[in-house]
């Protein structure tokens, strides 16, 4: 092993770290929804896709400055999250879990088909380019650095919201005992709506960060949906700290595995690891039995 070898390994570890931050953000929204409302948004990545299109159209078609286009994208996906809860989840809140899964699965295909119809199948991109940042012999992609920083910022903001505010504390409380919330003067339906909007906002932030790195197409959700879901399961579904750790573990498998073999092999190894973990700890790394 020479020096060069180590530098490239270090580079892939660091890139895995950056990817981990982004994946952690993506899984946070899904975990929040499941932890609080006890429903899995199978269509979560399709909300991200909607956000990516929103940023694209506001920036490229309407000529808004990128930052405003992104804020608008976040707001739109937050509203979509609230609407998803109000129109789709609320009527099936007390239904069997399989029915809840199927109905959000239906929304997944609806959004994909609607996006194909409205936006077309051609790949779109913002056309924004960044030059890589080179430190010593290691180069970093600027969008990845931005994504990492913004993801950490978003997660810190969410942490502060959940721990410091009344609504945030109520969101954590309702996940522990839904039935007595009215005795606190809390309307559970309102908390669910706020939580759904927050989950949507996180998906929207994820969209803003992904749109800097990837082309947009109606099936882009399939690139992130399964991996986001698996990370949540690996960390213990609904366990936000577990999801955070699982995202970084998963990202290292993808990045370092991709370094030793080929990038596709990174995913193969990561998913094999996931399957193995499901035998060993089906409740997730941090999940309670």
């Amino acid at each position, binding site marked *: 092993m020479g020096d060069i070898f180590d530098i490239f390994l270090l580079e892939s570890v660091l890139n895995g770290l950056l990817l981990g931050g982004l994946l952690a953000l993506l899984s946070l929204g899904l975990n929040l929804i499941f932890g609080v409302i006890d429903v899995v948004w199978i269509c979560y990545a399709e909300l991200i896709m909607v956000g990516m299109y929103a940023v694209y159209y506001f920036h490229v078609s309407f000529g808004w400055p990128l930052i405003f286009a992104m804020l608008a994208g976040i707001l739109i996906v937050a509203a979509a999250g609230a609407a998803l809860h109000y129109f789709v989840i609320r009527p099936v809140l007390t239904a069997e879990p399989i029915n809840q899964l199927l109905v959000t699965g239906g929304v997944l295909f609806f959004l994909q088909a609607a996006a194909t119809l409205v936006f077309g199948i051609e790949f779109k991109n913002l056309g924004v380019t960044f030059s890589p940042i080179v430190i010593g012999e290691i180069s970093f992609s600027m969008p990845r650095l931005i994504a990492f920083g913004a993801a950490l910022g978003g997660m810190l903001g969410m942490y502060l919201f959940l721990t410091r505010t*009344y609504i945030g*504390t*109520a969101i*954590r*409380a309702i996940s*522990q*005992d839904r*039935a*007595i*919330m*009215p*005795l*606190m*003067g*809390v*309307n*559970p339906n309102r908390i669910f709506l706020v939580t759904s909007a927050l989950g949507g906002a996180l998906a929207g932030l994820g969209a803003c960060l992904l749109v800097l790195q990837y082309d947009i197409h109606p099936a882009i959700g399939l690139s992130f949906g399964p991996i986001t879901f698996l990370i949540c399961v690996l960390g213990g579904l609904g366990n936000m700290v577990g999801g955070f750790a699982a995202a970084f573990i998963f990202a290292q498998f993808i990045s370092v595995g991709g370094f030793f073999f080929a990038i596709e092999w990174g995913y193969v190894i990561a998913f094999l690891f996931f399957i193995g973990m499901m035998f060993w700890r089906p409740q997730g790394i941090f999940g309670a039995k």
Partner: protein
Amino acid sequence: MSAAMLKVENVSAGYAGFQALFGVSLEVKAGESVAVIGPNGAGKTTLLRAISKLIGVTGGDIAMEGRSLKAVPAHEVIGYGIAQVPENRRLFPRLTVAENLKMGGFLPSARARHDERLAFVYSLFPRMKERSGQLAGTLSGGEQQMCAIGRALMSGPKLLLLDEPSAGLAPVVVQSIFEMLKRICSEGYTVLIVEQNIRQVLKVVDRAYLLETGRIKQSGAAADLLASDEIRKAYLGI
């Protein structure tokens, strides 16, 4: 003679396919402490759940300070000054003591007075101040009951509903719970308490109602009920 603070009039209530209360009437005056006693399954918890609107009332009416609660949703009842300490305490186990107390003062009108009320709860239960950063699920049974009562007091209630505060606690702890209740009553709170531990609760409250199979069977001053032959035979085993 003062008007009733809480007036329960001819209330019927129950669950799907099962009626638990049959035309129950009772009242609680300001400053009074009143107990509803009775055996397991008499409908005592159902009564408190009906007052807090956690279950629907199928007949009769409940009024707080002359205002009917008929059309009031459960989460707005606390705004009328009614706070409940539910059966089995029902703390949020993975929130800290301080966060549990904070949830009790969730109403916007209560938030403004959070610090003042927290200081009051801590003065009432100094143990809660020591444990403020601890997860509620790790408290002992007696401490959990203090936390649950403190949480209800954080809304600044006019009327405190207590559902079986001694249930599931060790006998030594039960004793301290009743000491605690005496203090709450002497603080001037109006209290409606539901208990199976009849002998103990009758020593603490002013008046009591005996509830059996969903109907009020007897009522009167606590001391009179404690001395009544029927209650002594049926419930105190004397």
